[in-house]
């Protein structure tokens, strides 16, 4: 069985807000210096979901896990990270050739890559990239490939050509199944991801990484580039926050709590 996991590398989303900078003129993120890019956390969980499927299938399974990413040349953090976790091989679509962004171009690039890999049974993506927060690409890939898609998974199991997914709902869990091939987007409720072992990290360096060009996925240079984009970024900015925080102090917890309770009463909330 072939599993493809689509991953994205981003600036570490856990940085303190004070370090986060935008170049409003160029409408781009200013990378925090000295900070290595990471695998987008939801994508990391998608890799984990694939590894759990392979673990359950056992040592001698025929499950092959391929990671696919679009990244700037030389920027291989996402791929290295996924291979070190245990993925078998990777396909890299490199900028500047693949410099188109947005849901439409990205989903088409990834969908055509998956078609070119051939005979893929299961495609996993994060529920959204932790930088764009759009949650569009995964569903877009499924629409382009005309296969079923199941979103917000916290558990994914495969059995005899069927994928069974537990989906996270606001007030519960829904179990959904579909025949393969299918696409599943993974949510943070999947739970803890494994750490890369020393052994896998050393092996990762020797795992095959193919770098593909537009013709390898049946598209031309215009189609994969920013020229094919159908959206325009008009503005990118950090919202201003003009709230002044008034601190409530007191000598004992009871005193502080009393002041807070009084404030709540004054606001007619008690």
């Amino acid at each position: 069985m072939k599993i493809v996991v689509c991953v994205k590398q981003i600036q570490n989303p856990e940085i303190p807000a004070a370090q986060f900078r935008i170049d409003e003129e160029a409408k781009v993120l200013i990378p925090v210096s000295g900070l290595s890019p990471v695998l987008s956390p939801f994508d990391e969980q998608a890799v984990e979901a694939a590894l759990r499927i392979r673990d359950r299938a056992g040592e001698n399974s025929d499950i092959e896990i391929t990671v696919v990413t679009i990244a700037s040349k030389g920027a291989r953090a996402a791929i290295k990270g996924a291979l070190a976790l245990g993925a078998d091989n990777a396909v890299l679509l490199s900028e500047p050739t693949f410099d188109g962004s947005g849901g439409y171009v990205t989903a088409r690039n990834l969908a055509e890559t998956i078609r070119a890999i051939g005979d893929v049974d299961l495609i996993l993506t994060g529920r959204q990239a932790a930088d764009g927060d759009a949650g569009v690409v995964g569903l877009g890939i499924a629409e382009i490939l005309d296969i079923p898609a199941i979103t917000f998974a916290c558990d994914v199991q495969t059995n005899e050509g069927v994928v069974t997914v537990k989906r996270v709902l606001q007030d519960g869990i829904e179990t959904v199944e579909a025949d393969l091939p299918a696409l599943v987007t993974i949510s943070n409720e999947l739970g803890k991801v494994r750490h890369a072992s020393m052994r896998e990290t050393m092996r990762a360096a020797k795992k095959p990484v193919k770098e593909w060009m537009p013709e390898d996925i049946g598209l031309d240079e215009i189609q994969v580039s920013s020229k094919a984009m159908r959206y325009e970024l008009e503005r990118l900015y950090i919202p201003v926050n003009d709230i002044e925080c008034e601190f409530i102090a007191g000598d004992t917890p009871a005193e502080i709590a009393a002041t807070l309770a009084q404030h709540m009463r004054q606001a007619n909330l008690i």
Partner: protein
Amino acid sequence: MTDNNNGVLVVVEVEDNQPIDLGLEMLALARRLTDSMGGSVTAVAFGTGLETIGEILIAYGADRVLINDNQIFANFHAEAWLPDLAKIVAEVAPTIVLIGHSESGTDLAPRLAFRLDVDVATGCESIDILNGRPHMTRSCFGGLAREVVTFSKSPALATIRSKSQQSLTPTTERSGAVEKLSSILDVNSIRTRVVSREQEKAAGGVKMENAKIVIGGGVGLGGPEGFKTLNEIAELVDGAVGASRAACDLDWCPRSYQIGLSGRTVAPELYLAVGISGASHHMAGCGNSKTIVSINSDPKAEIFKSSRFGIVGNSQEIMPALAEEIRKLKA
């Protein structure tokens, strides 16, 4: 684009035969947009038992309501919704399609966009018409930044964040047309099968989205016991309890408590953030609250930057004391 356009189509979600608040909020946005660019507001609702929904949606701002009342739409299923919805969008030919940024809407909107071969801006907080074109403002980078995007193809699809708009005061003076649709769905086209739905036990009391007071708990609570005190206080003040993603991931509380980018959105009168650091992805779910009061042991916690009142201290001591004080005030 300002002339001869067909306005805004609003996809209104239904719960217990009633439109959800987010649907009504989007109607207000649609009205504002059509005031600015012309055209009319069409609302569409899928579900069962929708006899009265037409009048309600007109009272809240729709000019025309399309109703797809059918047993197959009793529960949301993206694949079931898509063929009918794609057909409706093609027929109405709106300039903008608004869909709720809800559990269902986020599952539906991207699929609809690709099926219609147009683009979608998810998690929008506002839309403005500039030079005749819709400019969508949405949150990105986990809530740290905002981006404004425009699309080259029409219609522009957008999912709208809950509580980012205010619904209009309903009035029976408004008039409009209500039309019933019949579904074109071929059930054989549905490829994902729902095996089961397990409802998590409701927290009891007020629904988080409707509560005047929401108390959010985070890792600073120190453990699952901390949530007991929060629930106690919530009960005293008719409030609801929520949580940060970190607390949910630690299994200290039901995952249905999660407030934030990938959880629920609340905008109560008072959001009491207890032991929550204030990561931007959490603030994305509570930033529109009228007043935020936060309790954190770290005086440098990010949450204080969004708070009207702050308390630097140990929440495990302060919360039981607060419960006690409220009991006294109520006595």
